[in-house]
Structure formats: structure tokens, C-alpha cells
């Protein structure tokens, strides 16, 4: 199924729950995402559908639309999600050492704490430099 066909089917579903304003809403939402109805992105289609569903007042109808839209969206060829894998070590494992299992969850580096660390180390350096200046060499 092509992207245009998917979009047409979603428009039909939205019209069923929202009435004749549905094409206009879909067009407006597409424009918000920087797309036009002739130039849609498969990647952004779910977001577009979700945004359009927020315009539906009735909760029951909203879920009904989302359910129908999900069925349609699943017919689009899904691109594999590429997540950065942890770097693999090239060296052979040393059998004498105990193997430590790597955690699946790795915290992302916090830029703020890094900045703070840099600031603290810079201050320390400054202090040590200043300290060196006050003590006269004998």
C-alpha cells in the first residue's frame, strides 16, 4: 500500500468520526509538520494521525479512530528502529577473570553534570595556580 493510499484511508476514517471537516484538519496538521498532502513522510504519519485524533472531542470516537488508523498504519512497510548499540570490545575475553554482565540500561551522559565537573576542576586548577603564586619559592 502506498503512502497516498494510506493517507486516503485515514482521511476516510477521520471523516467517519469528525464529518466533512476531516480533510481540512488533516491538511492543517500536515502543514504543521512541514508536509503537504502530496508530500507526506511515512515516518511522520503516526504523529500526524495522533495529532489529528486530538481534535476529536468524544473519547470513544477518538479511540475508535486510533484503532482504525493503527490497522492502516501497520500496512505501511515499517522501517527498522536503529538504536545505537554499545561498543563491542575487540579483545578476546580473559577466562581467568570473572565476567561482569553489562547492564542493558545505560544512563546517558548528563551534559549539566559534565559542565559542573569541568567548572569544579577549573576552579581547583585556578586555586592551585593561585596558591602556587602566593608561596614564594625558597
Amino acid at each position, binding site marked *: 500500500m502506498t503512502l497516498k493510499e494510506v493517507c486516503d484511508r485515514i482521511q476516510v476514517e477521520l471523516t467517519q468520526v469528525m464529518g466533512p471537516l476531516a480533510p481540512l484538519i488533516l491538511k492543517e496538521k500536515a502543514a504543521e509538520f512541514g508536509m503537504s498532502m502530496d508530500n507526506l513522510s511515512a*515516518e511522520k504519519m*503516526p*504523529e500526524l*494521525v*495522533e495529532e489529528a*485524533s486530538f481534535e476529536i472531542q468524544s473519547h470513544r470516537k477518538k*479511540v475508535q479512530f*486510533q*484503532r482504525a*488508523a*493503527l490497522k492502516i*498504519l*501497520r500496512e505501511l512497510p*515499517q*522501517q*527498522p*528502529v*536503529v*538504536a*545505537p*548499540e*554499545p561498543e563491542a570490545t575487540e579483545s578476546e575475553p580473559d577466562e581467568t577473570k570473572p565476567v561482569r554482565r553489562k*547492564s*542493558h*540500561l*545505560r*544512563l*546517558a*551522559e548528563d551534559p549539566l553534570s559534565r559542565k559542573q565537573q569541568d567548572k569544579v576542576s577549573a576552579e581547583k586548577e585556578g586555586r592551585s595556580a593561585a596558591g602556587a603564586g602566593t608561596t614564594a619559592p625558597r
Partner: protein
Amino acid sequence: MAVNMSTVARKGSLELLQKLAPLREVEGVRDYFFVDRKGTILARKPDSPVEEEVAAACARDMAQVGEILSLLPGQEQDERVFDFHFKGTVLIAWDWGGAYLMALCKEGVNLAMVRMTVNVIKEELGKGRRFRGYLARHSGGEYLLSEQDVGSERYKHVMALETGIGAEHKLI
């Protein structure tokens, strides 16, 4: 399909497992689990690549975080959603009052697809009378943190936030 029934699905949770099945079809969702207030996994993706102990730790920690945050003022809404971004992984948890649904996804997962799928699942679960009874049996009872825990030294910063004492503790 081989299903480890002892851990993946406990007695009475098969309906729950079926209702959660649409999450399997979302590209990038590595694991999902339905967890009670205490952080015990009630149902989990059958062929999950994630180790059981990792999932159990996620579930318990997340339930604890949810409970601590629920002590803060202004947390009275029907549904709370937490998302934690790690390197390569996103953990999303929906607090539905009596229980949590958690999804462990790859970084770059289409969040709109996940959100809409969960929205539909929530609606389906709400319709199921058998499921509501099942959840009522599992969501009641003790909380993860006792009143004694909450009043203890370890959680005093939470109490400070609630009472407005301790200006150094601010939510960002």
C-alpha cells in the same frame, strides 16, 4: 510458540496478555510488562529478549519512583506517564491508578505509534469485566512503601517537597 508460563503469564492473566499483544506489532518495542503497585510483573511479552531479572528490576524501581512521585502535590490526575531516556533505550510507564504498564523500547521508536497502541489497549482493558476483577484483586492491598518508609530519613526530601519545607529541593 514457547511461552514460559511460570513467569510470563500467571493464572488469570491470559486475557491481559492477549490485550497487550498489539504492542508486539510496534517496531522497536523490545519488552512490555504489566505491573501491580508493588512492582510485581503480572504479565509480560512472551518472547522478550530482555533478561527476566532486568525486567523485574525495571518494574520494581519504576513502581517505587511512581509511588514516590505520587506523594508530591498536584499528582491527582487519572493517568500519569513517565518516560526515561537511557542510551539506546527508552522506558515508558503509564500509571493507571491500580497498576502500571511499562514498555521498554529502542531509542528512536515511533512514540506516536506506541502511545496510540497503548491508548487502544487501555480502552480494551477497561471494557473487560474479567480483567477489571483481576486487576482489583492485584492492585489492592499493601503499597510498596509503608507509611513508616515514607516518614523515614531516606524519603525526607519527598516529605519536604510536599510540605514546602527545604527550598534547596526543587523539581526541575
